[in-house]
């Protein structure tokens, strides 16, 4: 068993695949992190990301898989789920070793796993599209803080840009400390500097004059539209797990 240490980028992962084939490795485990010379294991390899090698692997994949499938692998990796890079590597190796396109072979554990990962990522993306709650700031920017389970911000850009084309907005991922900002023309990634005393969720002092009124109207609407005699807390919690509540206007 070889442990391959890579830098966490998709190119790094593709480079690792290149090494696996060049060195004819069989049992491997990929981990993200820093190379330490003092590692106890003998069979640890440091993968140095190499654009050329990564591109060769990518070209090979494109020959064997549909464009959409390669895209899915990229998204699965970008989500940054722990220890899932091995499923991605497993999928890629299966694709190279087979004599036909295997992307729909749901009987294979790697293919099925990637399909599950994509499903989880999609669900998180949909949740964010639903649960983002903008607050209007004094400068007319609509601001929202989120804490998605996976790294899905890049997947949200298209949806929000199409929908809110005529207002400035920002969605900030508190866990991963970066956000996307739309300035009426383009979107860009940004990071914000919060001092010790202010948190990304502290916005009270800078919201527009009518913001609190609309928040309160929304809360009112939310409780008026409930039918008490149909109460079903289980179902409610399944749809909105508690961890999302702290950013939902109708729940705080």
């Amino acid at each position, binding site marked *: 068993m070889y442990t391959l240490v890579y830098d966490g980028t998709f190119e790094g992962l593709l480079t690792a695949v290149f090494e696996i084939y060049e060195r004819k490795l069989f049992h491997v485990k990929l981990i993200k992190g820093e190379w330490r010379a003092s590692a106890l294991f003998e069979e640890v390899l440091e993968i140095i990301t190499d654009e050329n090698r990564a591109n060769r692997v990518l070209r090979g994949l494109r020959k064997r898989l549909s464009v959409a499938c390669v895209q899915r692998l990229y998204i699965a990796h970008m989500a940054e789920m722990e220890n899932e890079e091995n499923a991605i590597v497993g999928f890629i190796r299966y694709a190279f070793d087979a004599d036909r396109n*295997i992307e*729909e*072979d*749901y*009987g*294979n*554990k790697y293919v*099925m796993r990637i*399909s599950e990962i994509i499903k989880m990522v999609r669900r998180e993306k*949909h949740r964010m*599209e*639903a*649960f*983002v*709650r*903008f*607050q*209007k700031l004094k400068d007319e920017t*609509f601001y*929202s803080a989120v804490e998605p389970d996976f790294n899905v911000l890049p997947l949200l850009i298209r949806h929000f840009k*199409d*929908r*809110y*084309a*005529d*207002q400035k907005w920002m969605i900030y991922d508190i866990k991963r400390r970066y956000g996307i900002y739309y300035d009426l023309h383009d979107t860009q990634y940004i990071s914000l500097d919060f001092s010790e005393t202010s948190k990304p969720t502290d916005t009270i002092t800078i919201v527009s004059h*009518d913001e609190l*009124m*609309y928040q*309160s*109207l*929304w809360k*009112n*609407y*939310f409780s*008026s*539209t*409930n*039918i*008490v*005699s*149909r*109460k*079903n*807390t*289980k*179902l*409610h919690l*399944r*749809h*909105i797990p508690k961890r999302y509540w702290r950013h*939902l*206007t*109708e729940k705080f």
Partner: protein
Amino acid sequence: MNVERITEKLNILADAAKYDVSCASSGSKRKNENKGLGNASNGICHSYTEDGRCVSLLKILLTNHCIFDCAYCVSRKNNDVKRAAFTVQEVVDLTINFYRRNYIEGLFLSSGIFKDADYTMERLVRVAKKLRTEHNFNGYIHLKSIPGASDELMREAGLYADRLSVNLEMPTESGLKLLAPDKNRQDMINPMNFLKKEIIQRAEEKKLFKNAPAFAPAGQSTQVIIGATPENDQQILQSADYFYQNFNLKRVYYSGYVPVLTDKRLPALNTAVPMVRENRLYQADWLMRFYGFHVNEIVNKDQPLLDLDIDPKLGWAIRNMQIFPVDINKADLQLILRVPGIGIQSAQKIVSARKFARVSWEQLKKIGVAINRARYFIICKSNEFERRDLTGNNIKQFILAESKSKYIKNTQTQLNLF
């Protein structure tokens, strides 16, 4: 805006609108043009009420003043409730401001009937027109068509709204006569007919001329109230089927009657909302729309009621044991779809996977098949399969016994579709 006044109005008019269960915001592909506000795409549930229903639209009445006296309705003329009315501008402001904050997908506007049908409909249309033309709003708009409104107004409504609906309210005409003496079924059917023709004709035009205006692109839907009148499930589903077939409806909504009023024609106030029955009706509706079932396979003269203990697909399967077991590695997709415990996505995955190698129990489980139900009805790549010669009833008992333990922990049954 006077905050207190508007809050009070919102509370009254959202409360009065909540018994209309439809909240769908999908089926329209309205684009955001010229950098305006919003689009309508696949329908997002932005929140869920504590009863577990999707909150997708700002669902309100323009007013709860009404000249009619429908027995099942909180807004009926003779009910002693607080009345309120929004102005057109108030509804527009609420919609835009909620939408900009990503609270909603759009507006679902209905109304009590004040003065007459046209007078009311004209106001509803004005809200939609203002949103579209003055605010460049491309979010979702669902307007209720007021029974008896003129064709002219319906035509205008269709130009601004994504969806229009006329509620049939009661599954049959006699049910309607009993509870809504002011309404007549023909007044409901006329606008449905008009909309159906108009939608078809406009869709034709759209094929020829790309720039022809969209007309109610998300089609029309209706709602029937369940359990206020004595119709059985066969009557309800057959009437739904009739409307699907003849009026190109996108959806029929089934709304379990919530007792809010005392009236000797109605179930008593302490009657429970028929939530399980409502859920079974939705499941049956899905079987008709997506699983290729004919209404008579689900309910018929011998089986006029849906079994409340089990879902209608399992119900159908145990009545038709001669069809099983199905070989998952050979059968048509259509037949696999009929196996209890296998949903649409799993069925498609099975058909993909078996092109590579025959599929086993282990793999079926990974694909997402509910093995505890499906195992009585299928064989796969394995020597293990149900060998006992079980009757449909045996199977039902086994499946129920197995889910009993889950059931007891969880008395509020999970009302979910398959």
